[in-house]
């Protein structure tokens, strides 16, 4: 009986070890297009009534600079520009909720805000916004399509990276394209 107990102990220990050091498998299916992503394509894309791709890409770089981005990489041959900017991510509401949570010592999220006890240090502090722009001419070559995508990486007050996401707010894409329309006009008018 005692021997069986010992054998069981060893077996459990081995299984535990194997479980601890075993390799975790990565998820599958992350290179499949989702319906949601295809819907967002319309939001990210706009057609411009010009064949002049060079002018478009110059205007794009200008708009990104106007919006406070710095250019990270580009390949004009492919109509590609990448840029990024760091910005403040603090939200008054989130901090206020965190202060209350801390004061009350409640280890729970308040109205969906991801702040717990010691909540202030977990509140969003800074974000990096990445943008990549691809321009290409339409199949008939008469127009130019510009597609922009944005991502955000967010750090909390203690300097930990807390969230990464693809930006989905239509307003941001709209603002970019509105600014680009204006810039293309200004570029064409040599202003």
């Amino acid at each position, binding site marked *: 009986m005692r021997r069986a107990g010992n054998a069981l102990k060893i077996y459990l220990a081995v299984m535990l*070890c194997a479980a601890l*050091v075993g390799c975790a498998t*990565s*998820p599958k299916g*992350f*290179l*499949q297009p989702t319906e949601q992503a*295809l819907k967002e394509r319309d939001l990210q894309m706009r057609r411009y009534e010009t064949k002049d791709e060079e002018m478009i890409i110059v205007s794009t770089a200008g708009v990104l600079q106007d919006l406070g981005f710095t250019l990270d990489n580009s390949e004009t041959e492919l109509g590609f520009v990448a840029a990024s900017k760091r910005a403040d991510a603090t939200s008054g509401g989130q901090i206020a909720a965190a202060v209350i949570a801390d004061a009350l010592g409640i280890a729970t999220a308040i109205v969906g805000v991801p702040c717990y006890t010691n909540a202030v240090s977990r509140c969003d502090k800074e974000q990096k916004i990445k943008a990549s722009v*691809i321009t290409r001419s339409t199949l008939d070559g008469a127009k130019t399509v510009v597609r922009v995508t944005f991502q955000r990486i967010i750090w909390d007050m203690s300097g930990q990276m807390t969230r*990464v996401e693809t930006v989905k707010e239509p307003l941001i894409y709209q603002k970019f394209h509105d600014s680009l329309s204006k810039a293309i006009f200004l570029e064409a008018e040599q202003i």
Partner: protein
Amino acid sequence: MRILIRHCGILIILAMVLAASGCATTASSALQSDESAVQLRSMQTRAFDTTDKKKMMQTVLGTMQDLEFVIDKADFMLGSITGTKFFDQAFVQMTVTVRSKGEKQLLVRASAQYGIESIDDPQTYQDFFTALEKAIFLTAQQVD
């Protein structure tokens, strides 16, 4: 003392399991072995019947954007494109290279990383090539 001797066996087995299944050194994982390289290359590479490198690269860019990647780098001469996307709060990074194969074909190779793990799952790469095929209206051919 008796307790120590009794548990000694368990400790030895624990140590053996850790030694056997743990990574030998972290530095050795920086380079993959040559044995798997051929297999990996085969699952990551497809040939397309076209020589239009620019169009192929632009289609790769579009497909990657469809898959929610933000493009970080692109180089036409080198034929390389690198992008990042987020999946379940993890970083997915992918590099795609386009180069010519003979006079009539282009070879497209994709390699992806999920977090700190290199992807060696054939289906994941197949998903990417299926999306690319649809975008460029050409069949992706398996390369040996």
